[in-house]
C-alpha cells in the first residue's frame, strides 16, 4: 500500500465511522434516527451524535499529531502527548475547580467561570510551561524529559491529596481520568478544529527539522538547524494539541502513543507524512472507540479511555506478531 493509498484508506475509514457514529446511540445500532421526521430523533442525530462523532475524531487527530511530535522530538518511540506533565497538570486544574466549587471559597467563583474545560486546558499548558522553566528551555532533551517526569509526579501527588481530602470529587475525577466523549458539542468542535489546523500546520512546517533531528542532535546542528527554536516551537505544538484534547475529553489513554506506530511503517522515517497519517489514524481510532463505548452496553456507556486502550493495545500486538512493528519502529 502506498502512502497515498493509506491516507485515502484512513480518510475513508474516518468518513465511514462518522456515518456509523450517526447510527449508534442510546438505543444501540439503529437507523430509526436517520429515517424519522420526528422532532426528537432528528435533534438527537444533528445536535448530539454528529458533533460528538466529529469531536471524537478531531480529539483523536490532535492526540495523533501530539504523539508523532513527541516521539520525533524526543527520538523515543515510547513518548506520548502526556510526557511533559500535561496530564497531571490538567488533572490538577480539574481537581481544583471541583474542590473549589464545593468549598465556596472566594476563588471558587473565578474557578467556576473558568469551568472544567478551561481548567484542564490551563492546567495542561501550565504544567508544560513549568516543565520548560525547570529544564531552562528546550535546549537539552534529557533535562526536558526529566523535568517533565518531575512535574508530572509532583502535580499528581498534589491532585491525590486534594481528592483524598474531598472524596465527593472522586467520581468526577475518575470520569476525567478515564476520558469522556459523551458531552462533546458544537462548541467543542469550535475549539478543536482551529487548534488542529493551527498546530497541525505548525508541526508539518517543522517536519523537516524532525527528520534532521532523527539523525542525531549533532548532525541536526551541523545541518544548520536552529535546534533550540525548533524544539521550543514543537513543545508549543505539543502543549496546544494536548491541552485542547484533554480539555474536551479528559485523559484519553494510548491514542497518542499508538497512532503514530500504526502508520510509521509506511512513512520511511519522513515526519511530514507521519504527522498527517498519525492524525488520520488517531481520529479513526478514537472515533471507533467512542462508537464502541456507546454501543456495547447501550444505553450505558463505557469510559472511552478503556476502549482506546483495548483497541489500540490489541492492534499493536497484532502488528508486532506480524513482525512489521519491530523492523519499522527502530
Amino acid at each position, binding site marked *: 500500500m502506498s502512502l497515498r493509498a493509506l491516507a485515502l484508506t484512513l480518510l475513508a475509514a474516518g468518513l465511514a465511522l462518522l456515518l456509523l457514529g450517526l447510527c449508534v*446511540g*442510546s*438505543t444501540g445500532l439503529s437507523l430509526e434516527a436517520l429515517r424519522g421526521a420526528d*422532532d*426528537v430523533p432528528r*435533534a*438527537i442525530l444533528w*445536535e*448530539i*451524535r454528529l*458533533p*460528538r462523532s466529529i469531536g471524537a475524531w478531531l480529539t483523536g487527530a490532535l492526540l495523533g499529531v501530539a504523539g508523532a511530535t513527541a516521539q520525533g522530538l524526543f527520538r523515543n518511540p515510547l513518548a506520548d502527548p502526556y510526557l511533559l506533565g500535561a496530564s497531571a497538570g490538567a488533572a490538577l486544574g480539574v481537581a481544583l475547580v*471541583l474542590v473549589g*466549587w*464545593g468549598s*465556596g471559597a472566594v476563588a471558587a467563583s473565578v474557578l467556576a467561570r473558568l*469551568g472544567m474545560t478551561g481548567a484542564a486546558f490551563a492546567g495542561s499548558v501550565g504544567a508544560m510551561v513549568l516543565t520548560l522553566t525547570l529544564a531552562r528551555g528546550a535546549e537539552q532533551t534529557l533535562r526536558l524529559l526529566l523535568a517533565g517526569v518531575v512535574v508530572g509526579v509532583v502535580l499528581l501527588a498534589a491532585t491525590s491529596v486534594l481528592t*483524598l*481530602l474531598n*472524596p*465527593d470529587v*472522586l*467520581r*468526577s475525577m475518575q*470520569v476525567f481520568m478515564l476520558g*469522556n466523549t*459523551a*458531552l*462533546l*458539542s*458544537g*462548541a467543542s468542535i469550535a475549539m478543536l478544529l482551529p487548534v488542529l489546523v493551527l498546530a497541525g500546520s505548525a508541526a508539518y512546517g517543522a517536519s523537516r527539522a524532525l527528520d534532521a533531528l532523527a539523525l542525531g542532535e549533532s548532525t541536526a546542528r551541523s545541518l544548520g538547524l536552529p535546534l533550540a527554536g525548533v524544539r521550543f516551537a514543537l513543545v508549543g505544538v505539543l502543549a496546544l494539541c494536548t491541552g485542547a484534547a484533554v480539555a474536551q475529553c479528559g485523559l484519553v489513554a494510548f491514542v497518542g502513543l499508538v497512532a503514530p506506530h500504526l502508520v510509521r511503517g509506511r512513512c520511511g522515517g519522513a515526519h511530514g507524512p507521519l504527522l498527517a497519517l498519525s492524525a488520520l489514524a488517531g481520529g479513526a481510532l478514537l472515533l471507533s472507540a467512542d462508537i464502541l463505548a*456507546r454501543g456495547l452496553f*447501550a*444505553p*450505558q*456507556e*463505557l*469510559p472511552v479511555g478503556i476502549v482506546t486502550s483495548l483497541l489500540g493495545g490489541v492492534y499493536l500486538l497484532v502488528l508486532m506478531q506480524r513482525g512489521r512493528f519491530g523492523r519499522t519502529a527502530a
Partner: protein
Amino acid sequence: MIRRALVGLLAAALLAATAHAAPVRITDDLQHVVAFDQPPRRIVALLPSLTETVCALGDCDRLVGVDRYSNWPAQVEKLPKLGGLDDPQVEAIVALRPDVVLLAPSLRIQDRLEALGLKVLVLQTRTQADVRRVFQALGEMLGRPDPLAPWRAIDADMARIAATVPPSMHGRSVYFEVDAAPYAAGASSFIGETLARLGLRNVVGPELGPFPKLNPEFVVRADPELVMIGRRNADSLAGRPGWSRIRALKAHAVCAFDPAESDVIARPGPRMAQGAEAMARCLRRLADASAQ
C-alpha cells in the same frame, strides 16, 4: 428517705446488671458472629452513616473516634479523625482501645483489627433496608430493648414528607444526576428508593444498576419532566448538546441541591428523611410556581 432512694438505685443497678448478663450476639454482614458481655462503652465508627446511627440511638457519647468524613451531629467533629476511604489509621484506632470498631466492607482492615484483638462489626449501608438492618444490629449491640424505635420514627417522617408532595407532582418522570459524565441514580439506588417514596417515576430503571454511566442521548430521549442535580452542574445543563429541548429544562423544573443537601440525600442513614425533605421542598416550590 435517702436510704429508700439508695435501695431503689441499687435495685435498678441490679436489674440493669441482670439485663446484660447474657452475652449479646450480633451477626455482621460478613456473617461473623461477635459476642458482647455488656454494651460497648468505647466505640469507633469508620463510616458516616454508622456514626450517625450510633448517635441516632442516643449513644453519641460512647464514640471515641470516627472517620474523616463523619460530620454529623456536630459533636463528632471534635473526635479524633481516624482516616478516610482508603487510609484508615490502624495504629490510632488500636491506641483508642475501643470495645468495638464499626466499619464498611470496602475498608478491608477487619482482619488486621481482629488480629490485634479488637471486636469488629462490618456493616454495609446502601439501601433503606440496610439502614433498618443496621439500626437493628447496633440497637441490639447497645442493649436497646426496642432497637427499631428510631427507625420507625424515621419511617413515619418519610411518610409525612411524602404526603406533603403536591398531587400534581405524583407520577412525574424524574432524572437524578449524580455526576456530569453523566452518571444517574437508578431506581435500585438509595436515592432511587427515596424518589419512589415521594411518588416520582425514575427514567432510569432498576435494570441499569444503581449508578449507571448513561449515554446523554438516553436522557434526551426519555425527556423527563423533572431534573434533580447538584448545583455545581446545574448551570451547564442547558448547554449540553440537545438538552435544551428536555421538558424539565424548558419548564425550569430543575431541583439544584447545594453540597450540604447533596451530602444528606446521598447518605443512607438516619438522616434519610432530611434528604427526602430537601427533595420534597423543591417539588412543593415547583408546584407553586406552575400554579401561578
